[in-house]
């Protein structure tokens, strides 16, 4: 079990209001990702749920039980920190055993759970090492191991992969998703990396300045962003946003079109421009098209084999059914 409900939760640090009244429901077994730009209050929200910060007002219900004044250890949640927060003077085994020792679980049961967690996380060979003798990825796994053995109602992750290099991050991303599939426990995962959000989440919560901008599955957010902020935040490369006469033609204040929804041609199309920088990824190429008269620069995603060079003239046609329209308040027009 691990249903988490936030009701009218607010948080202030002195005079600064970091979280305005906020409602959110996280269902049991869901993999929820909080995304948002730096400083938007993702960590704060997670720490409120964990109990490491007190709510200023509002309710936090875990499995129906009001928890906002209960100390962290009693909430039945486990947290994985960005800095891993392993205990440097204890071996991996002792690190993983620590929450069990504190809970007064007997030695045999401790040993059973440690062995099991170590097997799941490929840590069996490292149990007698200290954290200082492990690589970043291994440390991260120990931190996850320490969370798993408690068999918590929900896992909380605060940017757990941001200290790892790109290749390892992809690997750990898969491992965490795999772990979620196996344990089927509620997980809340904070990141500012929208690729992590898109690939791992059942449900994404987009935050800005403590406000929830939109909640939905990755594809809902990708297909029907509720406002300009979400439109610009979800998707990589970013959606092209065009305002002015071109938007007016579609009866909107601003229109948005994703780079992958624009077809290009050397000779004809709705829009034209000059190719600026092109980024070759092998499978795809991103062209940054300038001098279109629409926006500063339009990004277009094309097949890796398409050969436009810097300075070439390029013609582009947006796919009509993929144009997102927004009104002057930045809200989506259906």
């Amino acid at each position: 079990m691990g249903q988490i409900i936030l009701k009218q939760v607010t948080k202030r640090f002195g005079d600064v209001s970091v979280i305005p009244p906020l409602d959110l429901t996280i269902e049991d077994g869901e993999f929820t990702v909080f995304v948002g730009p730096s400083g938007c209050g993702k960590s704060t929200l997670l720490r409120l749920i964990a109990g490491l910060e007190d709510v200023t007002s509002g309710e936090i219900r875990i499995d129906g039980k009001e928890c906002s004044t209960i100390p962290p250890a009693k909430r039945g949640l486990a947290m994985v920190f960005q800095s891993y927060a392993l205990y440097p003077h204890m071996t991996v085994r002792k690190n993983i055993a620590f929450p069990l020792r504190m809970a007064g679980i007997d030695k045999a049961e401790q040993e059973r759970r440690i062995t099991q967690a170590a097997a799941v996380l490929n840590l069996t060979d490292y149990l007698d090492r200290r954290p200082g003798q492990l690589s970043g990825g291994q440390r991260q796994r120990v931190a996850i191991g320490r969370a798993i053995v408690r068999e918590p109602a929900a896992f909380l992750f605060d940017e757990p992969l941001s200290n790892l290099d790109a290749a390892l991050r992809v690997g750990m991303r898969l491992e965490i998703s795999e772990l979620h599939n196996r344990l089927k426990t509620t997980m809340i995962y904070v990141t500012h990396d929208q690729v992590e959000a898109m690939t791992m989440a059942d449900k994404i919560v987009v935050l800005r300045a403590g406000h929830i901008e939109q909640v939905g599955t990755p594809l809902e957010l990708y297909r029907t962003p509720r406002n300009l902020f979400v439109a610009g935040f979800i998707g990589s490369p970013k959606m092209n946003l065009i305002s002015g006469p071109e938007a007016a033609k579609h009866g909107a204040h601003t229109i948005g079109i994703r780079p992958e929804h624009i077809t290009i041609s050397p000779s004809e199309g709705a829009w034209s421009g000059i190719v600026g920088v092109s980024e070759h990824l092998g499978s795809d190429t991103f062209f940054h098209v300038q001098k279109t008269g629409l926006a500063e620069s339009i990004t277009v995603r094309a097949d890796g084999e398409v050969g436009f060079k810097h300075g070439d003239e390029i013609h582009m046609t947006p796919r009509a059914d993929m144009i997102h329209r927004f009104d002057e308040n930045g809200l989506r027009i259906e």
Partner: protein
Amino acid sequence: MATQASRSAARLMMAPAVILLLGWMLVPLTMTLWFSFTRYLPMRGDSIERGLQWVGFENYVRFINSSSFWPSVQATLMIVGGVLVITVILGVLLAILLDQPIWGQGVVRILVIAPFFVMPTVSALVWKNMMMDPVNGMFAHLWRAFGATPVSWLSDASVPSIILIVSWQWLPFATLILLTAIQSLDRDQLEAAEMDGAPVLSRFFHIVLPHLGRAITIVILIQTIFLLSIFAEIFVTTGGAFGTRTLTYLIFQRVVDSQNIGLGSAGGVYAIILANIVAIFLMRIVGKNLDR
């Protein structure tokens, strides 16, 4: 220092410093050793110019057989041990306290460090006359206020009194080192332990104390070196009476009061041996912390 050439150049350039340091240490040490094997009583007309009479181990035997030798070793160890225990325990507690966000933190920190800037002689005099004086001291007033008979601290509780004075002087040092160590503790670790269900005391013993291990080791090692040779505090307060004659003080008495340089030197050599025994012992039990 990778190549042969740079290595020998480095050796050449370091040589003057090494030779100076060696001379600095070796000359007094050799002279002490030499005197300790001779009869050297300046009041009886012995002097280096006239040549000193070689007496072999006589001074050593006399020093160790004197009735004040073992009590002095005992007093030394008691004072050093007592001060270490008090400064480390109070130092840890004070460091934790000072680490909390309290009002007027800056001023409080300076006040805590202040005793360290007071010269030992001065602080001992202040303690003797202002605090511990059986008639006019603060403690005497305090005792009388509660209707108790004032204690004459420096004669009736002489060793604890000396320990108190010296601890007061060294507490700031311990606190300062432990405070910087506490400040370097990763807050996430404490929060992780909190999430793991460790109550305040468990967090202290499982997370904070191990983190401080290395700093405590350093405090103990450095303080021991200085505490083995405390002198002014004893000279000013009890003058070595009432069981406060440490080894250092005994040597002083042998050399200055009895004008027996040979005997004093032999005591000095014993002091070196004692210091090394203590050092090895300390390294054994706490030095493990430093390898990590």
